[in-house]
């Protein structure tokens, strides 16, 4: 199927642009998605997988040395008790949220274009949450008693502190991971059946057959399945909102200027979606090219993702503006100082990277030419993720390093081990993603088939006819 870019400029006012190009029918979609799984591993895959594995090794090194020596190998000091660790945590959790948004919220909004990217986006969510959970885990110092965070009866009669946002995080992020895995798996079952039915080797048939649970496309099953999918989408939506709100509460429930603002929950959620979509764009530009899926993941999909990025980027910008304004309006000298220190203090370099990457540069996406140019989008997606990482760094470190008492002020410098942990987390992420694209269908085949025009039994029938013939006598108009 020759790749066509014909829907890049297709923006009809009447009717809708086609979602899937290249004249696909049901069997050709199956082939497009499943053939790569059945071919021998291409060299290109190894070119991504091996370096990722290398980075993963770095993560192992950094965390192993951390467990051995202790948190002192990091650059944390008093007052900056949190820096790279929690920045990375919030960064990865945020990225994960886009996958759930694509799966759940876009489903509820009846956005059929989501079907080409939701499988990969959900996988991205799961891997991002895996990366995220590492950091609060390793930063506790005594990782061997990390199980104390769970409400298990014990011989000390100790219980976790449910009033603490740190514990809400444990529940929120692990529940988010669990629900995301379940949602992803439920969506996978019909596609696993597809791979099972095409399997030529017994081992492949057994493995995918076991995972597909005996799915046979029965409509009695589809009925409950669709209901479950809708309910999971309805549950995952408030979950996305609540999880990142709870993460924001790690900061917002404190009394620290720069941390304690009521806008943090929706602001963090908007930022999460912003960075998450950027990561989806990054992954999809590469994946689409590597697997020749230009007709399934089209320019129009990227344009829609770019639009969501502008919207959420503007929401983040609104939050910056509101924080600044209210910091002044409050008349509270500590609040005002905290915001000014961000922009003009010792970490101003980080602040201006953040503003450029999150607010200034993404404005290029107002132009259609930019939204439909994959090279620009790819670069922008990296820029946005750099900006969003710096946003969390700025919030955490600048608010901590200079708070109420000037004699406590200090400057934080990260050590090599913190950089290695950050880099290594990308290794984990990309390793998992490489494994995913190698062994599982990366496009939700059944869902994409369902949005083809020929999937609608009433395709081509006219349902409503507007009769404009008898125009009424016109009253005086403006």
């Amino acid at each position, binding site marked *: 199927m020759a790749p066509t870019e014909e829907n890049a400029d297709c923006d009809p*006012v009447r009717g809708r642009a086609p979602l899937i190009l290249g004249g696909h029918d049901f069997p050709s979609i199956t082939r497009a998605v499943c053939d790569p799984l059945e071919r021998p591993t291409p060299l290109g895959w190894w070119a991504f997988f091996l370096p990722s594995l290398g980075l993963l090794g770095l993560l192992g090194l950094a965390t192993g040395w951390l467990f051995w020596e202790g948190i002192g190998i990091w650059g944390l000091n008093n007052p900056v008790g949190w820096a790279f660790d929690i920045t990375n945590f919030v960064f990865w959790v945020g990225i994960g949220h886009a996958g759930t948004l694509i799966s759940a919220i876009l489903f509820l909004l009846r956005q059929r274009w989501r079907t080409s990217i939701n499988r990969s986006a959900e996988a991205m969510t799961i891997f991002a949450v895996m990366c995220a959970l590492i950091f609060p885990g390793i930063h506790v110092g005594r990782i061997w008693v990390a199980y104390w965070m769970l409400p298990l009866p014990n011989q000390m009669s100790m219980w976790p502190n449910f009033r603490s946002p740190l514990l809400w995080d444990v529940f929120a992020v692990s529940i988010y991971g669990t629900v995301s895995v379940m949602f992803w798996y439920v969506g996978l079952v019909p596609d696993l059946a597809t791979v099972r039915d095409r399997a030529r080797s017994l081992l492949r048939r057994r493995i995918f057959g076991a995972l597909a649970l005996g799915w046979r496309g029965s409509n009695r099953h589809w009925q409950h399945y669709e209901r479950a999918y809708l309910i999971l989408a309805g549950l995952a939506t408030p979950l996305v909102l609540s999880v990142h709100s709870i993460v924001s509460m790690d900061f917002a429930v404190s009394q620290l200027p720069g941390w304690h603002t009521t*806008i*943090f929950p929706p602001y963090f959620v908007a930022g999460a979606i912003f960075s998450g979509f950027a990561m989806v764009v990054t992954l999809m530009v590469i994946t689409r090219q590597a697997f020749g899926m230009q007709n399934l993941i089209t320019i129009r999909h990227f344009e829609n993702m770019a639009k969501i990025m502008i919207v959420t980027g503007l929401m983040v910008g609104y939050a910056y503006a509101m924080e600044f304004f209210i910091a002044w309006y409050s008349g509270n000298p500590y609040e005002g100082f905290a915001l000014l220190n961000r922009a003009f203090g010792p970490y101003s370099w980080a602040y201006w990277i953040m503003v450029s990457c999150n607010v200034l540069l993404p404005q290029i996406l107002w132009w259609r030419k930019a939204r439909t140019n994959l090279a620009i989008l790819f670069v922008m997606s990296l820029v946005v993720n750099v900006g969003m990482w710096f946003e969390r760094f700025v919030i955490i470190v600048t608010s901590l390093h200079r708070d109420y008492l000037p004699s406590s002020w200090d400057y934080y410098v990260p050590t090599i081990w913190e950089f290695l942990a950050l880099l290594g987390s990308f290794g984990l992420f990309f390793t998992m993603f490489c494994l995913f694209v190698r062994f599982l269908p990366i496009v939700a085949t059944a869902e994409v088939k369902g949005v083809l025009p020929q999937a609608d039994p009433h395709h081509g029938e006219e349902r409503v006819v507007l009769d404009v013939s008898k125009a009424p006598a016109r009253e005086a108009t403006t």
Partner: protein
Amino acid sequence: MTAPRVIETARLHVPAGSGLARLPLVACVVGLLGTAASVALGHGTRQLYFSWLVAFLFCLTLALGALFFVLVHFATKAGWGVAVRRLAENVAGAIPVLALLFVPVLLGLHELYHWSHPEAVAADPLLQAKAPFLNTGFFGIRAVLYFVLWGGLGTLYLRASRRQDDSGDERITRGLTAIAGPALIAFALSVSLAAIDWIMSLDPHWYSTVFGVYVFSGCVVSFISLLVVLSAAIARAGGMRGVVTVEHFHDLGKLMFAFTVFWAYIAFAQFFLIWYANIPEETVWYLRRLDSGWLPVSILLAVGHFVVPFFFLMPRTIKRRTPLLVGGAVWMLAIHLIDLYWLVMPTLHEDGPHVGLLDLTTLLGVLGLFFATVGWLVTRQPLVPLRDPRLPESLSFENF
């Protein structure tokens, strides 16, 4: 294969001389009487201006919700709601009358806002710090700018949409879509600042960064509820039968549900963060609403604005039974009024709510005049954007 539904667009008007066509006049009379009674009853009192402010905010939030609905519709190229969009355009198109209804607020500036008292500012360093923003002149200029923006957008969209009824020109849709994005940015900033100006500054020491979002969420919930009521009323009177279907009501019900949850999320986030940090300059606002006769109202809001609508609007069957949905919508409108009352009144009555005749007369006054305008707009043009390119899509879509 069922035969397609035929809809004669000629019938998509409010019939002249019908009951519906007479409503604007009735509303106008009620509005004028209400206003006169309010002035007579409350002349010179602070209560008059506070009651008027609540009533004004009620209609303003409805109109702003309408404007938001129209803008988002165009920005997202939505298809489902074209059948109800004209009603939203009409409500947004009535914003200019709200500019007139704002005048009493300006007249009562001194009674309403503590920061407008020069002697108070002179004695209070915090008010002095805010004086560059909270002063009468700049306040007035901002108000003018808000109404120019909102009124301009509301009128623009209504007129352009109306022109498309005659010409069917697709470029109108393209144009309105193109400006919707920047319009939404201006909308977000202006509504946030207006919320700070008109509501938050009633208590000038207090501040909350999420306050603009809070008021915005109330705008959307109340407007979607109003849209349900208006669409159902007009459909019942025969105006839009066959055009506005149960699918549209289902979607509006979903939006009501979603924004009820959103309102609760923002309301709780604001309360919770202030409660947790327990900083006196922030908690004072909530203490006034919890440690006094206002506590029952606060509980009523939590239960009535979240718990009850959450469980009521969740089932699919309720959203698809229009009479039930309309009942829910009326409830949401009432509870939104209580929300605004709870935001504004504790500044005047610290010990508890004192609902009086003035609250009723000012409400009738403002509502009457506002809905007279909306009604007049509804009657003078087609009920549906007849030649909108996405109207057929709106008429034939089916929900999950």
